[in-house]
């Protein structure tokens, strides 16, 4: 976890420095704001990871001497098939097309999006089928 944290904090430090230099050299708001945003992108998850890395034992994947047995057990829950990503994707596709081909496309698009949001939530709760 520690290397991951330092990696993200490195993003924050670099863009923080570049952002400061850029502001005092160019006085340009657009670029400076984007550099500030990039700094936060590294700082927020990076400091969270660092905070955790000092409070947890190294995971098997952080240890150079770990064996496969150290990592045995359930890794996580992986839905092996689900129709809802397709429904959600097509719903968003139709809603985007509605801005060009007519607002009536929002009706089927929004129906698909809402049913996908409900469907994917229900699927996660009951353990999921297609």
């Amino acid at each position: 976890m520690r290397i991951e944290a330092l990696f993200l904090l490195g993003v924050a430090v670099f863009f923080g420095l570049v952002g400061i230099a850029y502001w005092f050299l160019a006085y340009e708001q657009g670029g400076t704001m984007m550099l500030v945003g990039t700094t936060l992108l590294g700082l927020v998850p990076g400091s969270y990871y660092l905070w955790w890395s000092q409070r947890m034992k190294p995971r098997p994947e952080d240890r150079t001497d770990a064996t496969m047995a150290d990592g045995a057990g359930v890794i996580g829950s992986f839905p092996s098939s689900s129709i809802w990503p397709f429904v959600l994707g097509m719903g968003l596709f139709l809603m985007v097309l509605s801005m060009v081909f007519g607002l009536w496309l929002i009706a089927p698009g929004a129906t698909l999006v809402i049913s996908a949001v409900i469907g994917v939530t229900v699927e996660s709760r009951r353990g999921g089928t297609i």
Partner: protein
Amino acid sequence: MTVLAERPVTHEHEHEHHEGPSGLLKWLTSTDHKLIGMNYMVTSLVMFFLAGIMALLLRTQLSSPNSSFLSFQQYNALFTMHGSLMLYLFAGPFAFGGLANYILPLQVGAPDMAFPRLNALSYWLYLGGSITMLLGFLVAGGAAAYGWVAYAPLSSVQFSPGSAPDLWILGIALTGFSAIFTGVNLVTTTFYLRAPGMTMFRLPIFTWNMLVTAILILIAFPILTAAMVLLFADRHFGTHIYSTAGGGSPVLYQNLFWFFGHPEVYILALPYFGIVSDVIPVFSKKPLFGYKGMIFATMSIAALSTGVWAHHMFTTGVVLLPFFSLLSLLIAVPTGIKFFNWIGTMWRGQLTFTTPMLFCIGFLFAFLMGGLTGVMLASPPIDFATHDTYFVVAHFHQVLFGTAVYAGFAGLYYWYPKFFGRMYREWMGKWHFWLLTIGFWLTFIPQYVLGLWGMPRRVASYPANLGWRSLNVASTIGAYVIGISFVFLLVNLWVSWRKPVPAGDNPWDAHTLEWFATSPPVHHNFEKLPPIRSERPVWDYHHPDALTIEHSGAHSNGNGHGHLTDAGAGAGAGSSGDKA
């Protein structure tokens, strides 16, 4: 059904039976990273061939002065869509959606991507965005015609009327979201789903580069998507964010676009650097020279690339020239380190010139040429003289052809046995390489000269009395040779589909974990995993007698460096401990 993936420990681990839908329903519902990766690869290759055909039409128009093969509007629409398809729908998605989606979970020893359903959603958004953009050809007025950058005054509703520009903008927004989701997935998979012992400094370089690329995606793509939403608002909702008429600033669009656009160039380059860094050691029978140096070079390239966006805007006159010029020139240093490491890997290795290796060597030459002209363009005096000429076109194509085409197809040939469990035909791969190389240099070297003679980019026609004709003809012939070379790829895929030659699990005697899985890998990837004690666990497993180099040492914090450990009874065959 949800499957709780367990880490396989023993050889006797029961092959878990995966019963799911089949046929079309399987394609629509699968959340398997391998199937999604394959979908991405097929879709992006279709985009590549469409954009390639557009390039041939453009070159046909330019092969003679005052040509009337295409109308000016058709020419503008075709070069816009050629660039958009190649950059947004081929080069990026092929790498981070296709190859990375398929290979990265295998390389870290994971059963799937961290968020399989999000992964599937990002493919459907990508497909939807691609269709949205291509629909521009079918609406009245023809496709968007403002270049792949869509600069603000030109892309306003006044200068680009019709619905095709809207479709283009919305298509980019959809694929932007798809890229962001893939970026999240790649970072989380690398951080949380590694196999035991697979520390950060044992990850294959391809995975490292994809991690850095994913961070770049998370930096750059939200800004692109925001810029597109603002552009759409300017066109339809009466805002004046990018128009001077209402107090807005067109240069703001350029700032937003290039803050995305320059990292984008490296989003398109770093994954392909990763492929080259994985392929060259395998066919040199050596570990990668300077593993950690390679990682830090990748990080510095990515970091610097995000601070150089305005070097595309030198001629606007409102950017800070020394700042952006200095940072742009600095990128040459880590890129140079990479070149030395690749050459150092090949140095005194046992080279075998298979098709993937040839494509990697082709990449080295193409990218060297493109990179060096990039260093020239980073200098404002040269950029002012050559801006918007064919010099820039040639530079840009050499960089992106080197990465996305040379290294991309190196990756396709390299992992093809893993994807399908069968070999491609080597001789056809070599024909593909040599024709591609002849065509590539014949296409782009004349364009450098044309650029220095002053031929501007994005013109559909040029007068006969300027002497540009012969070089343009050469460039067009080169483009057609490139086109012919891809016939060999398609025939190769077709022949190996009809008459399969089994490849086995590890035909290349390769290094990284994906070659430990079966070809093609089973559902949830691994039935067993080798012990991971270096950055090339599969090679260690198959050569227990050889010297191995442990980069991470024995410490769990990964600070050790370059220990040479004798893992067995002396140096075995193919020993390669000469790095230390």
